[in-house]
């Protein structure tokens, strides 16, 4: 699975991350089953995937926490295997679960890391103070982390990754479990960071998050990359929107399904509860006509709406649609 082109010096110099054929197996399970990744410097890059897709495993390999079984990668020009320490010097990782010392205060957590990086005395306290201020945590600086809210923890966790400005910042599901306000705050923070020149590789389960933040998105499922591109390119592959239809009578579902497929040219997805369908619709006009056709055929429609596709629907579109070949390796 190794492709030889990783040695191309021109290609890797401009890339913050370049990975070829990464594989990690746990027992019988291939958590990551051969992933290629090229992340240009200074970009926000999102890895989108459902639970168990292998996002954390991929990040942990790139952050030198676990060794890949196969494949190779460079991070900021350093080889993952041979120059692990150089890689560690140029990255920072904010893991999926807060990596903070719950017993210590916010300030002490930052001081601890600043000192481990080699800041001494005033420099270390200054660094901790600056970061607390920047992340709006000054008031809670002397509280123990176990008394922090989820949003405060996340901010402190990210602050702790910025003691020394990293070349690449890995953020593993930075907003999972946050309320919408806290999520907006973290998003703003990520954008500001990217503006300051840091390359950011983040993972997420939310299409919306990838869409909002990332210049490029890789969609992974069961350890494989099933699509990659800009948000616009991905949307073009999976249709600009999704039409959701609720039926008055669940027994109409087969008829409705066939009709919608004929009208819109995509396979509809039945909701588990029955009596409802989701289907890709290339334009609002086409969706409108499809609903009209249902009604004209005497099918009772109690509700319909147009929405952006959920991650679930993206996967359905990318994996469950034999008519439309995957636009994999579109890069």
């Amino acid at each position, binding site marked *: 699975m190794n492709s030889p082109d990783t040695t191309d010096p021109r290609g890797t110099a401009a890339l913050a991350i370049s990975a070829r054929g990464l594989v990690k197996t746990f027992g019988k399970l291939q958590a990551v089953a051969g992933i290629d990744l090229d992340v240009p410097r200074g970009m926000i890059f999102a890895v989108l995937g459902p639970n168990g897709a292998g996002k954390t495993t991929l990040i942990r390999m790139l952050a030198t926490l676990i060794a890949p079984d196969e494949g190779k990668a460079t991070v900021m020009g350093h080889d993952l295997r041979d120059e692990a320490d150089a890689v560690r010097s140029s990255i*920072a990782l904010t*893991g999926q679960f*807060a990596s903070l010392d719950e017993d210590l205060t916010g300030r002490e957590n930052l001081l*601890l890391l600043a000192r*481990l990086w080699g800041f001494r005395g005033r420099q270390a306290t200054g660094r901790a103070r600056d970061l607390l201020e*920047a*992340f709006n945590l000054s008031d809670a600086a002397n509280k123990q982390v176990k008394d922090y809210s989820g949003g405060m923890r996340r901010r402190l966790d990210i602050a702790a990754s910025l003691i020394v400005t990293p070349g690449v910042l890995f953020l593993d599901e930075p907003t999972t479990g946050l309320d919408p306000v806290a999520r907006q705050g973290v998003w703003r923070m990520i954008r500001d960071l990217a503006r300051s020149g840091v390359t950011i590789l983040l993972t997420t389960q939310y299409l919306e998050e990838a869409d909002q933040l990332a210049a490029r998105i890789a969609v992974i499922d069961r350890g494989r990359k099933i699509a990659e591109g800009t948000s616009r390119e991905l949307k073009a592959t999976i249709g600009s929107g999704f039409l959701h239809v609720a039926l008055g009578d669940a027994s109409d579902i087969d008829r409705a399904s066939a009709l919608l497929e004929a009208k819109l040219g995509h396979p509809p997805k039945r909701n588990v509860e029955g009596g409802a369908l989701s289907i890709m619709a290339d334009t609002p006009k086409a969706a409108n006509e499809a609903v009209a056709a249902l009604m004209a055929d005497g099918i009772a429609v109690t509700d319909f709406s147009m929405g952006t596709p959920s991650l679930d629907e993206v996967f359905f579109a990318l994996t469950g649609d034999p008519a439309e070949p995957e636009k994999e390796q579109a890069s």
Partner: protein
Amino acid sequence: MNDITPATLKHVERPARPGGMSNALVFGWRAILKFKHVPEQLFDLIMTPIMFTLLFTFVFGGALAGSTDNYLQFFLPGILVQTVVFNSVYSGMGLSTDLGKGLFERFRSLPIWPLAPFAGLMVGDVLRHFIAGSIILAIGLMLGYRAEAGVFGVIGAFLLLFAVGFGFGWVFILMGLLIRTPMTVMTIGFTLIFPLVFASNIMVEPETMPDWLRAFVDHNPISFITTALRGLMGGGVTFQQILLALIAPVLLTVVLAPASLVAYRRK
């Protein structure tokens, strides 16, 4: 929520790389902070030995040694050994807790000396042994214990205790690394430690024990350590006793420190 201020996002270069010792001291500082924030942990550490001291001295002391005073004189060095060994179990539990929280993920992604977190743990352990040992000794002195060998004997005894704590510490560091749940570390830890501590000469001289048990007690590393400690504090210690006492801690360190590093790297 306010935005982060761009000023702080200025580029910060890393300072000169600190040495391994400096890293270890930072982790030691963390251990000390833990005492400040979680003073309850000391309570766990010293309550058991205090209870043991009082119970054994006053309940069994007369029967075992003729008088409570005599027994205390015999028992106190032993209870110090027991305290240190039990403490090491708690330290392994602490490590297992830390590892479960993802905090070590961050440490491992930092360019630092890989053994520094454990060296820091040891600094914390030594401090705990010192605090717990001092409290037990103070209570002993109040109850009438006399360290015949004087201050230097006591200092020597504490140094030996640190060595013992250091050596046995690796057992529980390794367990902390290999076992996910802190409660399991504690259960297995005490299952291993209890026979060693009780089938030793800490509580009673082995004269009255059956031969098979006596053979075990006589070769139990805890007995060697206790004998040396009695000698150090009460006077009359021999060089050979100290050597025998140090065998187990040295062996454990030589074998388990590299094993711990491998387990840590592999995680």
